[in-house]
């Protein structure tokens, strides 16, 4: 997809989301919040994992750090500063993690990132219990669901703009080359370490901001809620299903899956799991290259 069309499409869709808000009502807004949240997370995930093919399960770690940033700082400083802090914290932690994991590849990286998210969760719990005297934190910040809705639109626009910019930039080229053949990339003059860490940080920073945006919606967070590993898995599955190789791929996984969850949830609460699993299996067998792959084949 060429850039003017892509950017125009992002702007138009974002505009449509914003315009439609007054007519939504809480239910539809709630559904769209869910879709927007996963769009931002899955696109941010694919920003790094798509081109490098490093499958990360650390989404929940960065999301949770963002949520905790809100819990700790939400009442202490102006909101824009809180979101900025979340972005910085996510990026810094990701940089440290990125630098330490460069020797890992394939499934070792996958499980490492999962272990990392769990380690952070355990440490946060322990530190809260030991020094905070509590494990749950209340998030009473004057942020309404409508505010969250608009902030998520902004986050989505930001992540698409970021992705668009990265793709055209030297960084994006570097990552595609790394994903194709890391050895060639190195010998072509690409600082593989720097490129990977940089993008991992950018991607994590978006995830943290999303966590920070979402936290007030739940009034209460603890480590189990904020660092829920389901978030990592759901993001991974959505992005892979949509197709992580394209910037617009993950959203093609997010939207149908979110709607599928919703339909099954609303109509079959007692058989939700079975049906979800069955539909999932069917999709894996019938849509082997992701939704984006399906679209490209048709074209």
């Amino acid at each position: 997809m060429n850039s003017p069309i892509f950017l125009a499409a992002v702007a138009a869709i974002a505009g449509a989301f914003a315009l439609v808000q007054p007519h939504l009502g809480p239910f539809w807004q709630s559904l769209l919040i869910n879709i927007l949240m996963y769009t931002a997370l899955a696109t941010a995930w694919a920003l790094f994992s798509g081109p490098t093919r490093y499958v990360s399960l650390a989404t929940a770690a960065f999301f949770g750090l963002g949520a905790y940033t809100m819990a700790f700082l939400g009442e202490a400083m102006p909101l824009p500063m809180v979101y900025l802090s979340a972005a910085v914290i996510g990026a810094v932690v990701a940089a440290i993690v990125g630098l330490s994991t460069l020797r890992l590849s394939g499934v070792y990286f996958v499980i490492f990132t999962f272990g990392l998210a769990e380690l952070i969760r355990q440490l946060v719990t322990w530190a809260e219990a030991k020094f905070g005297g509590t494990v749950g934190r209340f998030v009473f910040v004057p942020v309404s669901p409508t505010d969250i809705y608009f902030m998520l639109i902004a986050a989505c626009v930001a992540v698409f703009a970021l992705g668009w910019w990265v793709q055209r930039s030297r960084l994006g080229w570097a990552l595609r080359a790394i994903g194709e053949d890391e050895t060639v990339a190195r010998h072509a003059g690409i600082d593989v370490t720097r490129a990977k860490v940089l993008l991992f940080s950018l991607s994590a920073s978006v995830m943290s901001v999303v966590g920070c945006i979402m936290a007030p919606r739940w009034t209460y967070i603890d480590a189990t809620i904020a660092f829920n590993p389901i978030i990592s898995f759901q993001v991974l599955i959505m992005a892979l299903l949509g197709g992580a190789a394209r910037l617009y791929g993950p959203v093609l996984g997010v939207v149908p899956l979110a709607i599928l969850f919703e339909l099954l949830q609303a109509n079959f609460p007692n058989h939700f799991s079975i049906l979800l699993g069955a539909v999932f299996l069917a999709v894996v067998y019938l849509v082997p290259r992701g939704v984006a792959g399906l679209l490209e084949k048709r074209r």
Partner: protein
Amino acid sequence: MNTTRRAALGGIASAAIISTAHAQTGPIRIGYSISRTGPNAGGANVTTLPNYQLWVRTVNEAGGLRVPGGARRQIEVVEYDDRSQSEEAVRNVDRLINQDRVDFVLPPWGTGLNLAVGAVLNRGGHPHLAVTSVTERIPELVQRWPNAFFFLGRSSAASEALVTTLQGLQRGQGLGNTVALASVQDQFGIELVNAGRAALNRAGFRIVMDRQYPLGQQDLAPLLAEAARANPEIFIAFSYPPDTLAITEQARIANFNPRVFYTAVGTAFPLFRQRFAANAEGVMGIGGVDISSPRIRDYVARHTQVVGRPPDGWASPVTYASLEVLEQAIAQVGTDRAALIRAIGSGTFDTIVGSIRMENNQRIAQPWVGQWQGENFVAVGGAGTLTPVQFPKPAWRPA
């Protein structure tokens, strides 16, 4: 259970039709989002869901909910699974209120999820009958959410009632003053142990061990070995269902026989008694019921018949009682939610756990310490009709 109509994703049109048609005579629609799956499913399926089902069935078999004027209206249920996730719970409640347009929403299981949906219920003007939501900050919460009612009180009340019970045993039965504490690293566990530690110190007990362990940990042999070495008179674990069982079993393996053995959440589960059989005897835990009450006995019998197992001896009867409060309030003022919130906050209700009257949206007086005595988890501490403590706890027997 009654027939259930659910709005699929679209659903706007059908919801609109219903809202005009059912206004006065149709069924009363009650919705809930509950953790059928995920980490909370264990608790939700013991304490909350069975009681919702039992109550709906009981009411409908009696002809429906009584509304002012004497008419009865059937209950129609809309239910969702929140998969133990806060975001799903929020969305489900949003959907129940705004899409399915239910008349009332019953709360999910657990403090985290209750607080997550608290803001939505507050915005929607729905009464929030929070039961399985126990935290120290309830007084602050009811300021923010005057529609919310907390039926199980604050964490510190549980710990303080336990310490009072222990003091009674010290005075009357010669219980010593050494205590070993273990607590799960979870909000409730931490609040319990913080309050418990302070109360124990005030009461002059000597804490010889004070350990925490992570949520979900079922391998607690080192912890119990340490407790056994400390050889205290009293062992208190502010624990959760899976680890409550693990701690008890490990104590038995280690032949650790303090004179008071207390494990918190899950002790009151029928599962506990089923697994430990005669060894459950004398184990104390959070909760407890007044087994002398015929209404409780009737409730236990109905629960056993409908659900297929007895209820737990702590939050189950209170959950059921919270529904009775709702039922009686509806009979008084009908389905106007604002009037209903006022009625629940100011009325006195006769329930299976006795008379309930809210003080600042909280139920204060209730049994807090239970003990397995025979087949029953009886109330031995806190407020209400209490049974004398069986002391000391008999030593573990070989399985």
